[in-house]
Every structure is written in structure tokens, then in C-alpha cells.
């Protein structure tokens, strides 16, 4: 397979894997918590690397996921004191953990591939060079397999707990009353977000992951009125944006992850403006109509 085809497939898989939990982040209004997670997982990766000294160890995933969940917990704990808003708690925890990771990388790991550039921006273009071999046979790029596994985990979690995710997101008090714990589901979802962030950071870097998570979900939110359709449309947008993004990045000779993220943002804004359901223009037209009706009524009343 050509490397551009391989890159496209990896990009599509990363995008879909990010978009699925992203739908629930958008609905819960916790997109900024996920922004924090996608950065702080780096600390977990660095710490696990110090223990294993192996960049390909699965322990890196475990460490990163743990730190991701810890991030959520610390933010919640700070917020629970009621001395700090959720927004401020994120603003404190995220840079602290992230900068610690950056310090550790620049100070102690200068001689390995764990350099800040690839961590921040990702290196999708190099993904095909890191091969996976099974019994001596080359079966494809390593990133493809790690992301496929993460995508599979996301799909399984969301289909198994679909009803629970739905009810805890819509009405947490009711969910708790019928014995479906919103806390358990929330931490489950955040574990998923952490795991996805670690997997994706290799390909797209920690800065852009949040765009991959939020963009397709928000685009779908603006177009649909049903959760299943929202999930479906998010997947379609994620795939389309990555396919077009890879082509465009090669055409303009620029960052692939950056191009996909730009597309995610642009498509989302376009839909925000023109969506026939919840778009800006539609909203403006409705307002105008109401205003006309109001003016007419006012005129009729004053005439009498």
C-alpha cells in the first residue's frame, strides 16, 4: 500500500476514534476538560517512560490514562471546594501537569524520540515508517493497529453503555434515582477520552486532539435531533474531513494533522452558520419573522 493511502487510513481511524467520545463531551459541555486531559496525558507518558525506558511499551498507555483520569479528579475536587470555578480549576491543573511534562522531557529525554515538537504537533507523515511485524511479516504501520484497538474499545464501550450514557447526560438526577450512577459513567467516559488522547497524540499531537474530538461532534450536534443520528453524522464528518485533509496537506505540503484540524474547525463554523436546524441564518430568520409578527400586532392594536 502506498504511504499516502496508509496515512489516510490512519487519519480516518484516529478521527473517528476521537469523534465518538467527543459527541458526549459536546453534549455534557465538558469539552474544556477534555482539552486538559489531552495535554496532561503527556505527563503520564513521560512518567511511564522513566519506568520502562521503552517508547513502545503498553505501560505508557496505562500511565497516560491514569494521569488523564487523575486530571479529571483533581479538577472536580478543586471545584467541589466551591472556592474555585470549574473554568479556573482547569486553568490551573492543565498547565501545571502539562508544563511538568515539558520540563521532564526537555531536561531528561533529549536523546530519545520523545521530543517536544512531535509531542505537540504529531508526525502523521512518519507513521508509515514505524512498522508492525507479526512472525517476521510486515503487516502495516504500528499506529494503525494501536488506533484500531482504541477505536474498537470506544465503539464497544459506547454501544454497551449507550442507554446509560444517554440518560446520565440528559438527566443526571433521574439517572441516579433509577440506580444508574452518573459518576461511574462520567469517569468511564473520561477514561475513554484519556486512552484516545494517548493513542492519538502520537499521530496528531496533543494540541490538536481536542479539535478532533469536538469538531465533528459539534458539527453533528448542529444538524441532528437524535443521539444516534448525531453519533452517525459525527463519524461521517470525521472521516470526510480526514480524507480531504490528507489530500490537501499533500497538495499544499503542510502539516496533515493541522490541515484536518483546520477543516474540522471550518466545517463546524460553516454548519453553524448555514444549518437548517440550529444555524445562525435560520435563527436570524426566525427572529425576523417574530419581529414582523410583533410589529404587525402592535400596528393593529394602535390603529384601533
Amino acid at each position, binding site marked *: 500500500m502506498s504511504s499516502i493511502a496508509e496515512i489516510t487510513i490512519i487519519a480516518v481511524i484516529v478521527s473517528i476514534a476521537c469523534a465518538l467520545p467527543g459527541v458526549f463531551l459536546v*453534549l455534557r459541555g465538558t469539552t474544556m476538560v477534555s482539552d486538559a486531559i489531552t495535554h496532561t496525558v503527556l505527563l503520564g507518558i513521560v512518567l511511564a517512560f522513566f519506568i520502562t525506558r521503552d517508547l513502545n511499551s503498553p505501560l505508557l498507555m496505562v500511565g497516560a490514562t491514569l494521569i488523564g483520569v487523575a486530571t479529571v479528579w483533581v479538577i472536580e475536587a478543586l471545584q467541589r471546594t466551591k472556592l474555585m470555578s470549574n473554568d479556573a480549576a482547569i486553568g490551573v491543573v492543565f498547565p501545571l501537569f502539562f508544563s511538568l511534562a515539558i520540563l521532564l522531557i526537555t531536561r531528561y529525554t533529549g536523546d530519545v524520540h520523545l521530543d517536544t515538537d512531535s509531542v505537540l504537533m504529531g508526525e502523521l507523515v512518519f507513521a508509515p515508517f514505524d512498522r508492525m511485524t507479526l512472525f517476521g511479516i510486515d503487516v502495516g504501520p504500528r499506529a494503525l493497529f494501536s488506533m484500531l484497538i482504541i477505536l474498537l474499545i470506544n465503539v464497544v464501550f459506547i454501544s454497551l453503555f449507550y442507554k446509560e450514557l*444517554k440518560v446520565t447526560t440528559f*438527566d443526571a438526577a433521574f439517572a*441516579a434515582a433509577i*440506580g444508574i450512577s452518573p459518576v461511574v459513567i462520567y469517569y468511564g467516559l473520561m477514561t475513554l477520552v484519556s486512552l484516545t488522547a494517548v493513542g492519538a497524540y502520537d499521530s496528531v499531537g496533543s494540541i490538536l486532539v481536542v479539535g478532533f474530538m469536538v469538531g465533528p461532534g459539534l458539527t453533528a450536534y448542529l444538524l441532528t*435531533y437524535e443521539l444516534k443520528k448525531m453519533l452517525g453524522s459525527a463519524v461521517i464528518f470525521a472521516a470526510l474531513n480526514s480524507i480531504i485533509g490528507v489530500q490537501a496537506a499533500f497538495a499544499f505540503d503542510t502539516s496533515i494533522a493541522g490541515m484536518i484540524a483546520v477543516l474540522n474547525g471550518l466545517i463546524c463554523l460553516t454548519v453553524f452558520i448555514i444549518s437548517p436546524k440550529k444555524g445562525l441564518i435560520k435563527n436570524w430568520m426566525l427572529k425576523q419573522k417574530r419581529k414582523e409578527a410583533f410589529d404587525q400586532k402592535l400596528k393593529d392594536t394602535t390603529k384601533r
Partner: protein
Amino acid sequence: MAEEEVITIRQLTVAYDANPVLWNITAAFKKGKITAIIGPNGAGKSTLIKSMLEFVKPATGQVKYSIDKQTKEYKKVKNKIAYVPQNSSVDWDFPATVLDVVLMGRYGHLGWLKRPKKSDRDIAEEMLKKVDMESFRHRQISQLSGGQRQRVFLARALAQQADVYLLDEPLAGVDMKTERIIMNLLKELTKRGKTVIVVHHDLQSVRDYFDEVLFINQEVVAAGSVKEVFTQENITATYQQDHNLGEGASS
């Protein structure tokens, strides 16, 4: 025959950060009756409902349910209790249809991981008909009026097919038609031996709608049948102290 007490609350005290919200509440709710919980803002009405659902941990005291002869705590009987939260507590822009929301009433019976079946769908449809919302089944919930939303919430509670119904201000901001539909359905539930408890704010309609009344303002002021207890004296006693305007910190 003595009237059966389905819910008993004994010496319940609830505090948020050592600020008491409920103080030494002892009360009981009778089977087949509809009871209004009445009190000023900050009296702890919602907190009382929430402690009955074990959302908040009391400092002391307990809530017990005697639904099928045995006395149990909430967790053991949660599928027999339906809860209608305040209308404003959820995100009405959530991508769900009216039928989706009513179907959630079946989730407690299904338990973790199981999907709703055809029979659950049939129950949801039936309850939608009862609240006169069947023609809205595929409507997105953001497009409903306040009254219609409240009827959807009631349909969800009915779909739980419970023995006890706890409703937190179900008539707040609803139209007359909705108020009539809700109160008729609740009356019908009590006729079938169900127990209904409603946090209520409109003193005018208490005599028409309720059998029993519980006046609270942090503590129990008065409790009993509307005929005996719903007096001007008790109303004045309940409303004379507003804890939201009192000195010091609020939670």
C-alpha cells in the same frame, strides 16, 4: 382499618457544610393518598425529596419504605419509586425525541447493559397517550412548551410503573391544560392505591388537589389531612420565617 404508612421518615437532619437544611424531620406518607409538601423558599422541600432518594446523606435519621409488607431502604425498592425532577434541571437541547425521554422511564427496570424491548416501547407509547402527547412522539424535546415538557416528564414517571411517585414542583410554570392533565393522572394513581408526594407552591389549589399536607420550614410545622391541618394558622406559622433571608451564610 388503620391507614398504611408507605414511607416513614424518622428524625432526619440534613446539613450542607454544617448549615442545617432539614432539622429533625419525622413524618409519614400514607398509601393511596396524595400529599403536598408545602413551605417557603429555602425550607428544604427539594432536599427532603432528595434525601428520600438518597441523593444527599443525612447527618442523622433515616427514610424507610414499606411497599410490599417489608420495610426497606431506598436502594432495595428503587424500581418501585418514580421521580420527576424539576423541569429546569435538564438540558432540553439534548438530541432526543419525546419518545426517547419517556422510554428512559423503563431503564431502571432494564438494569445495566440491557436495551429497551418492544414491550417497553409499548408502555412508553401508552403513557404518552395518557398525557395527551402521542402526536408529539417524534418531536425533538427542545421544540416543546414548558407544559408539554412537564407532561413528557410525567409520562416518563408513569412508564416506571411505580408504587410511589415523588414530584418536585410539577406545576411550576405550566398551562391550565397541563395542570389539569397532571392532577387528574395523579388522582387516578391514588385510586389505584399508589402513593403520590408533590412539592407544591400554590396555596390556592391545595384544597382542590390534595388529601394530605406536610408543612415544613426546616422543621415540620404541621402534618395531616388537608381538612384538619390546612388552616390559616399553620400557613402563617410555616411562612413566618424565610431562611433565605435569614442572617449568615446560605448553602
